[in-house]
């Protein structure tokens, strides 16, 4: 009765009396190479789960039997001599893949010395229990795991050289850094993970100190000199594309410079930078909303061609323009054909993005911050050796977050820059702190990494010694210039006549219900009135005094009258347009709302 259920890829396929036995047997078959090596099996809660499907993260582990790892020196020698491949290790049952589910049935030792009779597996290397981002993170075991995880996830947002073929790619958008560097404190996995060929940041000289209140709350200060020398400078690329579409009756779009006759003509200046073929010339400046690809479309309905001008077809302007807030230079033009044989043109624009106040930077240990000030080089503190920091980072950001890895990386890279050799910061076996200190001392630096510094403004010595190191910083893709927005007046929604929402639509910032509640609580009635009415959807409507419905004005005759009762006794009333809309909607569900008028106060 109490048979264990057996599941294959999540569906019940049968029952078995001995779950342990069947799981062991399947495992044995896998180790002998009779079953695929990516198949995993686990048993718990009186059920056996066999998984063969895609999408499970699996990782290799050395099989342990009776407290002895199956992998011996002999095997390693053979692999080194190419007599045996990694693949052979699987076939001979020395290494196997486990997924997260089967790990529940395993007892994995980190180091060979720890092995006991009970262990079932041994890590090939302790760092293999980490993912790629954590593995390339220096000294992660010295920081709180949460911080490391944050640092790992921020690596994905870093500007860098994400592809070596950036110059011939047509990604919709992308950023790349002008002078990416390899990290000075790296790990053994840097090369394998591609961090050396496609780096994600630069090595900054960082002084850790509060600086005249400009780095409060995780803000950072950049050196203007460094910024001008292209520190973290990068480009923003965006690709626009347009097609020559074909329509019925042999009509089609045309890439060309639209002529004056074309409906929706933008004016001559708008097309000056286009070449003869209607496509923008490379290296010309384009404004936000400017034309990149001149295109005209045939009229939507053939009837539109009036009988008076029989042969002339009035074409429509249908040019591809840059997005609002996205000016730039034309970087590259690609002309080709799509699968239907229609002409397809892609135009890539480029904009240089130097670091600005408000841009986001982060170190790999999860210490992120926003630029608070780009300080003139001559005003920044300098050390005894005359070194000025690229960045000043607030010391208050460290204690509560316990990012010791950040500081170790700082002295690690400092040592590396003195010795001219990379420091190894691989998890669990990075160069120990004592050794770093020793080397620093050997070269005449304080082992703590602290240095005497002088105030750039007064020239006086700063009383405290300042910790100076080199840290690998990433510039993240959250740039202020892509986020900053303000509005005085601008477009409104058609239906409600309220301001639009969103930066790309030149929208306003919404006063939501909670904000509204706060204004009510304050009794700020007039402010609320201004935000919700005067600066939003205020409208003047004519209201019939006798029947209370919305009246109309005949603009030509200049007279107002009520359409429902014909009365001419009509008053101007200020109301929100949404209220007028509500009245209309009420009519649509069969309710006739009436407005009673009364003199104000």
């Amino acid at each position, binding site marked *: 009765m109490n048979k264990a259920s057996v599941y294959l890829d999540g569906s019940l396929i049968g029952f078995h009396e001995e779950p342990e036995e069947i799981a062991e047997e399947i495992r044995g078959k896998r180790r002998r190479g009779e079953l695929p090596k990516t198949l995993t099996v686990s048993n718990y809660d009186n059920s056996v789960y066999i998984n063969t499907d895609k999408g499970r993260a699996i990782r290799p582990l050395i099989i342990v039997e009776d407290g002895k790892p199956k992998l011996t020196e002999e095997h390693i020698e053979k692999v080194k001599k190419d007599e045996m491949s990694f693949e052979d290790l699987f076939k001979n049952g020395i290494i196997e893949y486990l997924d997260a589910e089967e790990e529940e049935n395993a007892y994995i030792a980190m180091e060979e010395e720890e092995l006991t009779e009970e262990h079932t597996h041994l890590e090939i290397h302790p760092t293999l229990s980490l993912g790629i981002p954590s593995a390339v993170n220096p000294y992660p075991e010295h920081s709180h795991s949460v911080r490391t995880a944050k640092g790992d996830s921020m690596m994905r947002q870093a500007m860098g050289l994400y592809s070596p073929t950036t110059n011939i790619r047509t990604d919709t958008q992308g950023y790349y850094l002008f002078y990416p560097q390899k990290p000075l404190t790296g790990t053994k996995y840097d090369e394998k993970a591609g961090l050396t060929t496609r780096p994600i940041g630069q090595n900054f000289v960082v002084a850790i100190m509060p600086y005249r209140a400009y780095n409060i709350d995780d803000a950072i200060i950049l050196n203007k000199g460094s910024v001008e020398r292209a520190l973290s400078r990068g480009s923003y690329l965006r690709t626009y594309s347009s097609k020559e579409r074909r329509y019925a009756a042999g009509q089609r779009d045309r890439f060309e410079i639209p002529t004056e006759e074309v409906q929706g003509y933008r004016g001559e200046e708008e097309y000056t930078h286009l070449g003869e073929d209607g496509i923008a010339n490379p290296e010309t400046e384009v404004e936000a909303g400017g034309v990149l690809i001149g295109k005209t479309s045939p009229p939507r309905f053939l009837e539109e061609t009036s009988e008076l001008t029989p042969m002339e077809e009035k074409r429509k302007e249908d040019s591809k323009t840059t997005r609002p807030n996205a000016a730039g230079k034309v970087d590259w033009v690609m002309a080709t054909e799509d699968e239907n044989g229609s002409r397809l043109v892609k135009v890539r624009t480029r904009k240089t993005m130097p670091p600005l106040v408000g841009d986001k930077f982060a170190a790999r240990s999860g210490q992120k911050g926003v630029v608070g000030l780009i300080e003139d080089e001559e005003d920044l503190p300098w050390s005894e050796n005359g070194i000025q920091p690229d960045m000043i980072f607030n010391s208050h950001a460290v204690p509560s977050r316990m990012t010791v890895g950040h500081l170790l990386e700082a002295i690690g890279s400092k040592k590396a820059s003195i010795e001219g050799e990379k420091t190894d910061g691989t998890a669990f076996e990075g160069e120990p702190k004592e050794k770093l200190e020793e080397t620093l001392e050997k070269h005449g630096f304080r082992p703590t990494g602290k240095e005497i510094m002088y105030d750039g403004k007064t020239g006086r010595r700063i009383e405290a010694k300042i910790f100076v190191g080199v840290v690998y910083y990433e510039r993240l893709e959250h740039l202020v210039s892509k986020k900053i927005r303000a509005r005085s007046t601008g477009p409104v929604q058609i239906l409600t006549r309220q301001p639009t929402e969103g930066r790309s639509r030149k929208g306003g910032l919404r006063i939501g219900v909670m904000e*509204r*509640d*706060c204004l*009510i*609580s*304050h*009794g*700020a*009635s*007039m402010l*609320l*009135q201004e935000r*919700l*009415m005067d600066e939003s959807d*205020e409208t003047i409507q004519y209201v019939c005094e006798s029947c209370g419905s919305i009246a109309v004005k005949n603009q030509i005759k200049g007279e107002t009258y009520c359409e429902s009762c014909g009365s001419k006794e009509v008053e101007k009333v*200020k*109301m*929100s347009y*949404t*209220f007028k809309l*509500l009245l209309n909607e*009420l009519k649509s*569900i*069969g*309710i*006739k709302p009436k407005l*009673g008028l009364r003199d104000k*106060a």
Partner: protein
Amino acid sequence: MAKGKKKIYQKYEEELPEKLLEETKKETKDLNQKQTEKVMEEVLKEYKKRQVEPGEAAGAIAAQSIGERATQMTLKTFHVAGLSEGVSVVQGLPRLEELIETRKTPKKEVCRIRPKKEIEKNKEKVVKIAKKIEETKTNDIGKVEEDLVEEKIIIKPDMEKIEKLGIEMNEIAEKIKEKIRRKPEKIEKDKIIFKPKASTLKSLRRYVEKAENTRIIGIEGIEKATLVEKEENGETRYEIHTDGSNLKEVLKTDDIDPEKTDSNSIPEIYKTLGIEATRKMLYKELMEITEEYNINKRHILLISDALTRSGRPTPIGRHGISGEKESVLARAAFEEQIKHLLKAAQKGEKDELKGVAENIIVGNPIPVGTGMVDLRIDLEKQKN
């Protein structure tokens, strides 16, 4: 009292509330006339300072004050569990919701019974009351057996248990007799035999079931009565907290102090003690929950007032305060727009635009704070 002083007090009679005046009178007893005058001036000043200004959005502020803390409570709710109170009570946010929605069936009802002053320090006597209150069924004190051959049911109480509770066999027989409406055939020393006229097994079983569920002693609905020790002025006194509540019957019990006995069930308080008691109880319970969050009691007072204003406990929300607003637009703005609009159309309702929500919809300044005042021209003065 000196005549001058009396005059001073009289001067303030109109401006200060009675209770405050009484209190200041007591405090200024030993002062001379001049000092008293000064004190009274100061009292009036402070009193005026504490009054709510006209146009203050008291309701919105109260709602925000409680709402802000409530969001913090969601995180803390599950931390406080099972203190030494004996009977576990619903606490934190779930309880707050229960109170504000004036739910008909609170999750855990508790009666807090205070024995009379003379015996509240006597543990034995209090235990006796607790035993008397706790609902005890035949099932709890013994077994009910059936005799299929003779068509009898036999009640076999556990003699030890009865003795502890101080129940006589006759009493048990009497209670069961009432319930099954059959006279007992025989009352023996350790068993009672009934012989109902039950021809079928089914009907006999029904009698057994009935007999099993007969309440022998105690009050209906009180499942458990627990003794709770309380320290007061260095002395221990005892209270009884019950699982399940039946305030109406509990108040009838002897040897308890009905004035100090209460229940945490708002509907029950309303049923037995009326709306004023409900208001006070709501205030007390709300204060207890929000104690550690330090909310000004005025907000809570306002909320208890709002909940009981209509003469019965009114929940906040669709079926209560928000759904019963005067203005159609305000009601429609909250929930069930179509329903409210159609009903209003049927009745031909008129919206006077007196509230906040409807004025925002229409686009008028709201009648709160700066929106309450208006400028007018004094025509009389214009003439000159």
